[in-house]
């Protein structure tokens, strides 16, 4: 079907009944949170043209220009950014048919890519958008010591009438996930396969990184020596993927809960000079000085999750605040959930942080501009700034009050959710 076909137009209309179809929009807010360097929370207006933010005007007396459709909102924020989630790969039904987050057949699956598991038709994928998430880094699950490559995707948008993954891509290979702690050893160890212990998990990761370094050296040498096709080194997909991590092109994401596992992550990150970040970081507050010293950003895990293991027993609602307090870049993430409810809601997790030391603005920062900066996508998302994607959330009250509502969500200027 041609894109110019009238059928296509009909389909777009049906799939996106709220789509503004390229209209220019003036969003007039009583409380505008741009999350850029400017003032926050005052009245203002965001002008949207062709899916991008054209201009932001502060003040109560802003006049919407002619030709712009005017939308009024009590609280207006940037589209939320979930720094680490398995929504879209760990399906809502949680049955073998829709469980695609953990390739638990080999502790090293560096060569897998979430893009090939991602199902934007999954109910949770759509669900998170209704709570304001417009961009998320989707990661493999918590099982493999080397779990594979994450990607950053929009949760919806004007380009995705067929709900396929490619139009949603913001960046592929945004990170390589390494899992430490209980999950790997409980998956493999209970079947008497490696890793049975934490020390084996660390060894497996170090060994794979070492091999990747050697692999890269081989290829570099081959290129230096004239790229003779007959002497080409054998392709090793896992090492090839990890070579990108060793070179710093793909950041490592160490998912760790206990303080000593976080320490292991820092040790490996330092040893291999990786560009890396910490995820979950449950006991991060107990070694925040070490994290600060290593200058590692933290994707702070959901705190409303049930305590499912020993390693999360010391979870505190104040973790994000305590890390942020010493100057560590902090984003809040939802991560992986094993059972009911199948996904955490980023907005609600941030609300708990807001009420436990981070404050309203701090919590909002941790789910907008801060993750955008940590993930290196702040040129496109994370704040309401000129030239960025028009990803916007409209609330009828303080975004973090449980009794407030998301009134409207826009992705690249298209309304993807409107409160029924």
């Amino acid at each position, binding site marked *: 079907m041609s894109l110019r076909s009238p059928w296509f137009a009909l389909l777009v209309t049906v799939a996106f009944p709220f789509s503004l179809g390229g209209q220019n929009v003036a969003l007039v807010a009583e409380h505008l949170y741009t999350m850029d360097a400017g003032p926050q929370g005052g009245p203002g207006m965001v002008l949207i043209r062709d899916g991008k933010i054209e201009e932001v005007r502060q003040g109560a007396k802003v006049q919407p220009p002619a030709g712009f459709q005017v939308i009024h909102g009590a609280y207006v924020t940037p589209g939320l950014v979930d720094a680490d989630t398995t929504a879209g790969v760990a399906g809502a039904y949680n049955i073998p048919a829709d469980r695609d987050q953990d390739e638990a057949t080999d502790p090293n699956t560096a060569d897998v890519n979430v893009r090939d598991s991602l199902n934007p038709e999954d109910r949770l994928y759509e*669900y998170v958008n209704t709570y304001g998430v417009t961009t998320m880094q989707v990661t493999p699950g918590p099982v493999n010591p080397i779990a594979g490559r994450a990607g950053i995707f929009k949760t919806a948008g004007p380009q995705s009438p067929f709900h396929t993954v490619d139009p949603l891509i913001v960046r592929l290979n945004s990170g390589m996930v390494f899992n430490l702690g209980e999950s790997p050893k409980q998956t493999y160890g209970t079947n008497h396969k490696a890793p049975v212990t934490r020390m084996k998990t660390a060894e497996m990761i170090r060994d794979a990184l070492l091999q990747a370094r050697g692999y890269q050296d081989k290829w570099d040498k081959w290129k230096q020596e004239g790229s003779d096709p007959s002497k080409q080194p054998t392709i090793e997909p896992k090492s090839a993927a990890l070579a990108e991590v060793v070179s710093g092109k793909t950041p490592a994401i160490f998912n760790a809960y206990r303080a000593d596992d976080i320490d292991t992550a820092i040790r490996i990150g330092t040893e291999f000079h990786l560009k890396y970040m910490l995820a979950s970081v449950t006991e991060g*507050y107990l070694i925040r000085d070490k994290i600060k010293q290593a200058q590692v950003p933290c994707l702070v895990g959901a705190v409303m999750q049930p305590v499912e293991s020993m390693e999360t027993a010391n979870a505190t609602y104040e973790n994000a605040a305590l890390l942020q307090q010493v100057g560590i870049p902090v984003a809040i993430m939802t991560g992986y959930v094993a059972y009911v*409810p199948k996904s955490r809601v980023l907005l609600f997790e941030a609300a708990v942080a807001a009420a436990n030391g981070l404050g309203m603005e701090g919590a909002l920062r941790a789910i907008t501009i801060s993750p955008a900066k940590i993930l290196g996508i702040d040129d496109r998302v994370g704040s309401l700034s000129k030239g960025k994607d028009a990803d916007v959330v409209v609330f009828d009250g303080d975004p973090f009050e449980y009794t407030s509502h998301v009134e409207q969500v826009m992705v690249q200027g298209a309304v993807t959710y409107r409160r029924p």
Partner: protein
Amino acid sequence: MRMKMLLWAGLLAFSVSLAAAQSAHDENVLVVQGARILPITASPIAQGVLVIKGGKIVAVGETGKVQIPAGAKIQDATGKVIMPGIVDSHSHIGIDGNPTVSDSQDANEGSGPVQPGLRALDAIDPADPNIRMATSGGITTANIMPGSGNVMGGQTAYVKLRGSTMEQMLIPGTLGGMKMANGTNPKGYGTRGQAPMTRMEEAALARGIFQKAQQYKDKWDAYAKAVAAKDKNAKEPDHDLGLDAVVQVLDGKRIVHNHTHRADDVMTVLRLADEFHYRVVVHHGTEACEVADELAKRHIGVSFTMIDSPGGKPETINFSISCPARLEKAGVKVAFNTDDPITNSRLLLRSAALGVRGGMSEEAALKGLTIYPAEMLDLESRVGSLEVGKDADFIVLSGAPLSTYTHVIETWIEGEKVFDRNNPADLRYATGGFEVVGRYPQPTGGAQ
């Protein structure tokens, strides 16, 4: 009959000894004044006074209109909000302990799907940190239940969240309820090639145990009659621990707390209750709003679990935060439960707030934390509202009960403070980190 009487006498003695254990209540008078008071069963009081003596509420009312007894200890709560202690009608604290390791998990006796003889009280650990975490969230009364892996999971325990023994926790004079479950979870046996493998088998197992209990009851009734008629040939029937408890269900002394999600499973619950005329509360009730009228006409309440997102298993895929609002509109009483560990006991106020987000009235949401769950446990004469004569179970909040930014400052059970956010050790149960208090970074936000 003799045996039965002995049984009751034993139970009575047990209750009396419990009452004795509780009699250490402070006979001094405590007055908490200045707060906005939400009695729940009466209109809010802008500036209220709460008078407590001997673990009971002896007066509640407006400042200036309540007489303050001479010599009373006075606590100022100006700017705070006081409401009844929260009643959690569905919890697994103490029986599914913290941290989550197999040794602390005692809710599901997976050795057979029908277990009416089990008593939750024999597996609850009063030292479980989850219990203290629950008090930091304002919960004072809980129905601690066996899990949902069995069609009939065992006898539940109605407790106050205080004390270091079950005897101190159990509410005197209560039997507890009976846990039942249908839908996905009991089908876990099916994956091992055992019954139940299907929903129809679950219903057949439930029907079977009630039929047996009915016959057992008839036998004992006949025996009692024969003894009363001085029939020398009267032969005492054999005792059955499990059937004794099921007979209490048939006699209306023990309420069935039935885990159920899908609308058709809710209807199965109602069908069984209709058939055997027992009292039942629908628990979780993910799709209960689809059959709200059926619940309303039977006056059956729903103890709802407010989760964050649909799924995790197929039967919860249609979860919606609007379900409690739809039930309210149909005239069904809704309580909010934690189902701890599914939702955390520190956040039950939040569940009610999300009910309001879903369209519920604030009044019904607050009742859903207090008087409605109390009714679902037959405890409404003791707890669930701030009324003269009721237990002095109350919480002091920093602000509006349903606001994200509000903290529970104090939790009181029968006139005794069991949680104080201004106490650093208590605070770590509210925030988390209670095992590492010595290493917890200072200073932090702390009390507000």
